[in-house]
């Protein structure tokens, strides 16, 4: 699809994969996604908003997630993102592709 990812420390396309994975456990708003990523990665993955929101828009655009307005913990309007069926399928496909890629990278790094 030739996605133009905004600069991040991740491999291209990885942020989308992580967001999709994060949403498997249920609907979250943007801050929730960032926090979930930070906590589950032991503070390694700190996603900036300038990368997160364009990525969410790309997911929306492709129909992999959908967004609904709701109320946040501090009683503000917040958009909650949920995974769609197409998103689940995409997650599976990207995950396989990611595994293949990581395997390949490790094999390259493993050779002396």
């Amino acid at each position: 699809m030739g996605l133009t990812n905004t600069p991040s420390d991740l491999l291209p396309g990885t942020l989308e994969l992580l967001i999709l994975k994060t949403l498997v456990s249920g609907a979250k708003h943007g801050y929730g996604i960032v926090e979930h990523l930070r906590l589950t990665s032991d503070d390694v993955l700190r996603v900036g908003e300038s990368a997160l929101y364009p990525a969410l828009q790309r997911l929306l655009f492709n129909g992999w997630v959908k967004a609904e307005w709701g109320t946040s913990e501090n009683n503000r309007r917040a958009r909650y993102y949920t995974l769609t069926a197409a998103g689940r399928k995409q997650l599976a496909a990207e995950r396989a592709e990611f595994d293949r890629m990581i395997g390949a990278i490790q094999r390259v790094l493993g050779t002396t």
Partner: protein
Amino acid sequence: MKTLFQRLLYLLRWSRQGADLREEIETHRSLRQEALERDGLGADDAAHASRRAIGNVPLAIEDSREVWAMRALDHMRQDVRDAVRGLRKSPGFAFVTIATLALGIGANTALFSIFNSLLIRPLPVRDPGHLALLNDGQWSYPVWQELSARADDLFDGAFAWSAQSFDLTEGGRPVPVDGAYVSGRFFDVLGVPAVRGRMLTPADDSAAPPNGLVAVVSHRFWRQHLGGADDVVGRQLTVLIQRQRFPFTVVGVMPSGFDGVDVGRVADVLLPFAAEPLLQGRDSALSIVGKSWLEIMVRLKPGQTIERANAALRGVQSQIRDAVLPGLRASPAFAARYLTDPLTLAPAASGASGLRRTFATPLFAMVVAVGLVLLVACANIASLLLARALARRGELSVRLALGGTRWRLARLLFLESFLVATIGAALGLLFARWGSALLVRQLGTWERTVSLDLTLDWRVLVFTATLACLCAISAGIAPMFAMKSVAPGEALKSAGRAIAGDRRFAVRGALVVAQIAISFVLVIAAGLFLRTFESLSQLPLGFVPEPLVVVDVSLSASGVPPEERGARVERLLEAAVASGVRSASLSQRRLLTGGGWSSNNEVAVGDRPMLPEDRQRRVWRNATTPGWFETMGIPLRAGRDFSDRDRVGTPPVAIVNEAFVRRYLPGQQPIGQTLRLDSEDSPRYEIVGVAADAVYTTPRQGMLPTMWVALAQRDPREWSAWRNVVLTVKAAPGQRALVERDVAAALTMADPTLVFTSGTFDEMLVATMTQERLVAMMSGFFGALALLLAGLGLYGIVVQAVNARRTEIGLRMALGAPATGIVRLVFRRVGVLIAAGLVLGLAGSWWAARFVAPLLFQVEARDPMTFSGTAAVLVAVGVLAAWVPARRAARLDPATVLREG
């Protein structure tokens, strides 16, 4: 499809999305801030830190939105690039289709923009839908005054105007300017604001205007004659009337786009009616009840229908009539019927126009004709696109085989026709601007300048865009049929093995039949209009126009009192004769203006009683000096011409024409009879001569009963009603330009302030048939164009059919079929198409004939000669279109063909 829709939705809600994102990110920030506060930071520090962490919000929003915009553009760009590439691969096809559409759409747009500006476009005033025009024709000022006094009760106000031509002095020279007298509330009721200064007010139109003589000028006049100066208010305009100069103070400038309410005629200088008596002095028409010279419009009250307005108006009609009747100087018969026809208002949102009456029907006919031409053109393009799609079946099959969806393929093919239509429409707009200006110039004649506002307003643009879309759809549907026969892998099979009866040809066949049918209708129309024009131009005029030069001398613009004008024009005639012309004479009226001077009723011959007014049976009149019949080349059948002895004081004499004798004195000796007309106190004119018939108004009207009186016998007091007199000069062959110049010089020498225009009679003759000539010219052009397109369409399908059946034809020839047999084979199929097209076209023309009948002259709308001639022409074109490919087929070498297979 869904994503496309989503994208569009997204793009439409562009600003909304930005706000949403901003809010979303703000929520995000506040959540972070709270988390930081929980970690023990102070509120301010937490807010600050959270804001720093979040970074550049606008950039994040911009990036997020770009995701959508870029994608949408990307896809669009890719499709367009594919379509452009496809077209560039076949420049011939692209050129032909784009040129055809540019011409077709351009011609349609040109006609529509004229149609729009003449008939549809509302006046640029406040709420034009509530304006209504008092029908039919013109009214006198006393009638207007009575109506105006009641207008505010009956309606939301009313106004009157009268189109005029004023002579302004600019650097000492008289310059004629189109303008109008308007009533005081003209601008107020119309709702037209001033762009500089103020508009005219009721105070300006009163007997004692507070600011003296004031004028309002058009935006164009301000720009062109007053240099667009900001200090225009307060400047002086000098109106020259009867050798006197009247200074008018400019009080305001009208907004651009507003040229008055007469469509097709521009009013550059507007003066209040109150100025008229000052300018015209004793010639003033303001108080004359019987002089109809102004037009009246009213503004309906909100919610008031035309019917209710009419009822209200008719309620006061008798009051108006009673109020003005005492001032009417007319025969009792005329007075009895004066203002008794019920007054009628008509919606006038788009203004008033005499042009409209003349050109509405022919213009509509032409709009229909040009629409049909576009239809034929679209059929051709559809046919071409279809052939192209069929020829590209190989490529399309490969695309399908490689996983392209049918939807994607269809979109590609459709985008191609859409692209062609869009480029065609853009070029067509350029063509239309040029074409419509050209056409409008054709509408004008030397005595009437037509000026229509042809700016491309939204109506024209919507019309053109709709046309382009319709073209794209109608032409783009056809290739879809080709899609059905495309299947993956077919590229490997096929190639030249098709045999007769292929379904794909059915579509193109149907298109060709439609083309032939439409061309038939258009060629019939062209034939009928050409024959109309021919019969009109071959109509005997009854006089010889070729050697004539006509000079229109304005009497009102010179300062000679009415009683002395008779002597003055005779001096002018002497001056003209002295310049060495073969023959020169004066008349009160010029022939072939479409109108003239007529009696109100029939003529009473001898002692017969006067009949009541009947405009249908009126007698046309003219007044001439001796020698006019000789100058015009109208022979005298009996009696004598006027002589120098026929002067005021001698018994009134008249000359009548043969049509007059046929109506009033059949089988009698006209010479010596007497006649009276218009009123009981009419003098008795003695008929001294009978002239041959000559056309008076227009050739279409034929020979009308006419009587001439001696110019020198006219009551000097009557000269006040005359605005001009016509000097007709006969020139030697080839000398007309020279004579025109010499006469002009002689007249100027005799009277340096004289205002006149001159031209040759031929020019006027051409002008009388403007409408017929235009219609004949344009329908001829459209007919020929449609014929050409249909011929090309037929040729294309025959070529393709022959190519597709090469193998079959080769086989037949190898088996011994003679060349004539092959030709017959091709022709049999073409014949069916032509025959079907002719039958459809015949039926269509038969049905449509009644609509063109009113435009025809001396030609039946179902003229058998035109019908059979058109059929012959179409068959000839069809045979020609089929003959070339058929011959080529018959010359095929069977061996080569079979080896290819």
